[in-house]
């Protein structure tokens, strides 16, 4: 059976599954329940000057009958005094020495503030520190969270101050509310970060009530922008992990966060360069027990792939993630409809007709029934029809091999000789 142990910047964990900093890691009671359920580690709810939260705090995006396709929160960091949290961290670490406990920290961008909190949390035996430069709401108005996380200089400086005092590995948690995440990732590395984690939540407003015209969520009739998380943010998180993993300057391990719900999501993040993953919203939606299938599913997957260790997955797909200009213009694939599986909803036709290249045509079968066929020479292989097709196997995208590849960059070089 494959080995799920990971080594994340020197932090050992029995599996790659950690709880992200958030409501599930608010107290010792919760973290201990999570460890009992099988989680390998937990990043404690962000510590700092205790806040006062508003009610209500969350809102969910339901899509097509499924709940929590996306999730929005305006919760701040911990509202409990540091001593209370530290006591529970110490107790939990004592009772679960084989599990990783990471302290998430957020203080004002001042050297002495970072030094103080680092010393106090390391005193109770945490395995590492995570600097929360991410929360997009509330704390940002107090110049913390994403307000400092969006400024590379501040990221670098605060990381540096932390490193001055820290003895355990320092993970810098990045905000996605920035144009180019590699800029802040790089700043963290310059500041001496041992690892980076991403993403924190994304600026969002969940919705507006059509009857009351109040926002979701609303607090006495008022709302504010919140942080977006859950399945809907996964592709954004994955691309940010990939951006960092493909940067030659960023050599530190990456902890992948954002929309991870199951072992399959976790495998994707690891293939794209994450050495472990963190989960918040899915644990809020279903409880800690989801980790059972994450562990079981990952183990079965590794066994099936003939891999001995979860670490063998890390970064395997990174070399496949390129700049647009390095993609092969000569690559060709076309859609083909398999009549055995087609259920004749005609959705592919109308999508292609109205939004692609008008190449899915009706024809009449010998028995008089109407069916659809792709005019392959005009098909640009965009995938739209196969994306909208509700019948598994009805549309296959057929690869049409070309002898030579030619990327955009190569093409532009060729043309440049001719003055293009």
């Amino acid at each position, binding site marked *: 059976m494959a080995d799920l142990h990971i080594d994340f910047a020197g932090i050992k964990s029995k599996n790659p599954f950690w709880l992200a900093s958030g409501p599930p890691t608010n107290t010792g009671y919760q973290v201990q329940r999570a460890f009992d359920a099988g989680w390998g580690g937990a990043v404690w709810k962000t510590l700092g000057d205790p806040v006062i939260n508003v009610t209500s705090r969350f809102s969910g995006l339901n899509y097509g009958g*499924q709940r929590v396709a996306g999730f929005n929160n305006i919760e701040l960091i911990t509202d409990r005094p540091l001593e209370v949290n530290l006591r529970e961290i110490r107790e939990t670490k004592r009772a679960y020495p084989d599990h990783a406990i990471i302290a998430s920290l957020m203080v004002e961008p001042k050297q002495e503030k970072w030094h103080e909190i680092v010393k106090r949390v390391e005193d109770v035996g945490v395995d590492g520190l995570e600097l929360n430069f991410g929360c997009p709401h509330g704390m940002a108005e107090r110049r913390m969270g994403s307000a400092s996380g969006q400024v590379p200089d501040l990221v670098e400086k605060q990381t540096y101050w932390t490193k001055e005092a820290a003895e355990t590995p320092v993970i810098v948690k990045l905000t996605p509310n920035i144009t180019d995440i590699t800029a802040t990732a790089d700043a963290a590395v310059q500041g001496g970060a041992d690892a980076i984690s991403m993403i924190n939540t994304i600026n969002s407003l969940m919705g507006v009530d059509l009857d009351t015209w109040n926002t979701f969520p609303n607090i006495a009739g008022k709302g504010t922008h919140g942080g977006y998380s859950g399945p809907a943010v996964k592709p954004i998180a994955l691309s940010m992990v990939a951006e960092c993993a493909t940067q030659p300057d960023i050599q530190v391990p990456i902890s992948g966060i954002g929309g991870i719900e*199951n*072992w*399959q999501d976790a495998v994707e993040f690891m293939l794209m360069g994450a050495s472990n993953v963190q989960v918040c919203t899915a644990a809020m939606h*279903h*409880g800690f*027990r*989801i980790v*059972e*299938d994450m562990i*079981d*599913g990952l183990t*079965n*997957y590794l066994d099936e792939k003939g891999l001995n260790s979860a670490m063998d997955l890390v970064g395997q797909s990174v070399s496949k993630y390129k700049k647009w200009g390095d993609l092969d213009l000569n690559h060709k694939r076309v859609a083909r409809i398999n009549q055995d599986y087609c259920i004749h909803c005609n959705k592919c036709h109308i999508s292609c007709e109205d939004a692609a290249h008008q190449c899915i045509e009706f024809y009449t079968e010998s028995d008089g029934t109407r069916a659809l066929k792709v005019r392959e020479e005009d098909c640009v292989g965009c995938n739209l029809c196969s994306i909208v097709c*509700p*019948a*598994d196997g009805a549309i296959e995208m057929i690869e049409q091999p070309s002898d030579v590849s030619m990327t955009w960059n190569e093409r532009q070089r060729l043309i440049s000789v001719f003055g293009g």
Partner: protein
Amino acid sequence: MDSAATHAWKIFDEVKPDMKPKEVMEEANRCLFCYDAPCMKACPTHIDVPLFIKKITTGNMKGSARIIMEANPVAATCARVCPTEELCEGACVLNDASLPIMIGDLQRHTMNWAMKNNPQLFEAGEQNGKRVAVIGAGPAGLSSARELARYGYQVTVFEKQAEAGGLDTYGIVPFRLPKHVALWEVEQIKKLGVSIQTNTEVGKDVSIQAVLDGFDAVILAIGMAHVPPLGIPGEELDGVFDAIQLIERVKSGHVTDRFSGKKAVVIGAGNTAIDAATCLKRLGAARVQIVYRRSEKEMTAYPFEYRFAKEEGIEFRWQTQPKRIEGDENGNVTSVVCAPIMLGEKDASGRRRPIEIDNAPFAINADIVVKAIGQMRDIPLIEAFDLAHDHGVVAVDPLTYQTSNPKVYAAGDVIFGNGKGEAMVVAAAEQGKKTAQAIHEQLLSKI
């Protein structure tokens, strides 16, 4: 095989196809993944339903199969024959809000995957030196054997039939439960090192004393026996059959044209009657009537079976009491003479007492009569073991499944008493599991 025979076999193919991939995903994702889920509690073997369904959604089919079979060693059978409307599906929280999750069908989908891919799900425990004999390789016996093997016992199963599986192999009609499904489950148990000695009847091929002396514990899982006599004149006529023997012959591959074009009367209205009736229809019977002395309300067949029978064109004649079977000069059945019935006060079983109306007998034309009025008990064997029993229902401690002989345990239909629960595969499987646990607890101190 010639084409007629091929055709005959085709009509015995499993009626219900596997779910389609899209159906599986839509249905599995509809499950709410309830906490402390009522479906799980309603399953007699307590399969972790939300978890096995969650694993389907993540493509972890091996994990899904493990979760199911961990709780139920005969889960491929159960997915086909369990009265799910009464059990898991009946308890699903979505019954009120929308439609219940098709738990049985999802379970069948996972088990079909397992039968196709044969993953190794379990291992035998480290040998603890203790030996247990199991008499009867039906679901109760097999389930106890699987659990005991996992605890590290050396298990020998004695089975009088040529193949293991009990009624799963021989008694439930193939178009609901193909034989290969039951035999696959037997295979999984054999893989754990359980020795299954078929064609070996305890009390005949092996002596009772040898079993009692040769093992540290004995599990009696012999189920029930054949259909009892009707006790009416004409029972010996040519054309009168025992439902269980009839189904057994069909499941063993004896498809005959004996019933083709015939008019059949099936007496009784339980599982067995319905299985026999639908079986006759597939064997070509022109008309099949089920005759039952009580009313539709009192019949013991499950609603889904009743529905299925009606779909198959079976006719029901309620409140009808067979009085005698008449034959021609050659001794062949020609009709069943019946008396109409009135329903009186409720009896001990809570069902209204049938009262015969004497002066209005009528005849139903028939060439074939099939008896399906329950099953007898193997009282001689039970008494040879010297076990306390009530009309052949072996008495056990409800927690430990121990009989009056502390070394002998009993599980499955052999302890199923009328009016107490249902004779079901899933109940037999759970009892087998519990018996194994009880034995382990008892013998643990001696290991």
